[in-house]
């Protein structure tokens, strides 16, 4: 086993632990909960992995992390897995072909992914069923969660950048 391969295993193990930690944080009642709203941390974590490790690693992480989220979510099982997979692949490809890995870009990607994920959920879970007070629900429950998740994405992004530079010191591209 080469040094490079061993380093990769350690790196992805650490990433997996961080994603799992993010899942624990977002599903534990009362932990980082503000006015009844908790941040949705798993998706930003996977987006960060996709940004730093490429579309394939990001897609795999997104898929399995999405399955975890599906087990705790009210959405149809598989919804998060699919959405995370697609968003992470897109984020990885966008970083390779369109964006630089600047903090602002990563934050925008996280915010966009989280926003789209919640809008999709909002549409398929609520709008399609034509519930009452939908807009109020969106502004009081979903929008604050998007904002809170974006705020928490910043330290996640910094953490992944730090880890990536530690495990891949040769890659200085931003």
């Amino acid at each position, binding site marked *: 086993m080469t040094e490079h391969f061993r380093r990769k295993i350690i790196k992805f193990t650490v990433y997996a632990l961080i994603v799992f930690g993010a899942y624990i944080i977002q599903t*534990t*009642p009362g932990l980082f909960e503000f006015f009844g709203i908790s941040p949705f941390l798993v998706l930003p974590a996977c987006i960060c992995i996709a940004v730093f490790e490429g579309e394939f690693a990001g*897609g795999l992480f997104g898929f399995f992390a999405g399955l975890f989220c*599906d087990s705790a979510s009210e959405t*149809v*099982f*598989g*919804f998060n897995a*699919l959405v995370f997979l697609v968003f992470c692949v897109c984020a990885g490809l966008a970083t390779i072909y369109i964006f630089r890995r600047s903090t602002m870009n990563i934050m925008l990607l996280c915010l966009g992914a989280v926003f789209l994920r919640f809008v999709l959920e909002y549409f398929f879970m609520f709008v399609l069923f034509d519930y009452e007070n939908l807009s109020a629900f969106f502004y009081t429950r979903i929008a604050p969660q998007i904002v809170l998740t974006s705020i928490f994405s910043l330290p996640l992004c910094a953490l992944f950048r730090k880890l990536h530079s530690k495990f891949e010191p040769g890659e200085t591209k931003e």
Partner: protein
Amino acid sequence: MQKFFKSWYFKVLCALAVFSVALMIRAAASGSAEVFLSQAVSVVSQPFLDFSSSVTNSVNEFLDRFIHAEENYLRVQELEEELRRANEKLIDYEEKTRENEQLRTFLGLKETNPDYEFEPATVIGRDSTNRFYSFTVDRGSLHGVEKADPVITADGLVGIVWEVGLTYSHVRTILDISVEVGAYDIATRDGGIVTGDLSLSSEGICKLKYLPKESGIANGNLIVTSGIGGVFPKDLPIGRVKSIEIDPSGLSLAAEIDPIADIENISNVTIIKSFNGQSIGFSGSEEAEEGEGE
């Protein structure tokens, strides 16, 4: 980008996406997320979630003490005030209950003895050095209480007012060796004098002396006041015969009497201020101090 779409990465990712869609279709069709994967994920994450929840709860409970300190302080003050009011109400309730109980007793006694004039009183002091359970009540001459007035409870005779102040009275009980009460056994009609006994008073027992030697008195018989002498009304229950013995003089019988009233633990009493036949042959406090002398 073209390279990616032709790579096996893309095929793997597409397969995963199709798998996700299949999961969604299956979950939507079955109406439940309880598929194998969901259960597997739950099994993996459950211990961590349990641990995380317990840690979070502990931390939140700890932080709540500081975050809600002022709120809790105000709440405690509010509850203390509420408790104080509740205690006041409880005291009032207890007082009312006691009064009610006494009034019921009075009513019963009044019905059978319409001539009785009552004064309810509360025991406010009991000297620990007194061996005969004498006590002080919160009624005195201002309430019309006089020396040698009988003191009773709903159960029976307790004692006699020995000393009267303006707002208090000292009461000596029938366990006191200085108190003598004319009494008789309602079964045999044999009379004697109930008084305290040094060796028995600590057990809450008094003695019926000077019974005729040929008396047929038996254990368990009820002893009541005779009313002779005018200090105590007639037929107030005193106690029941516990044991019988021959007086040391050999001339009469003596019986140990277990008072009906719970004299050792008494808290409320009733003073009979007047009754028909009171003071007949009784002319003042000196006589009372000497006992009824029946």
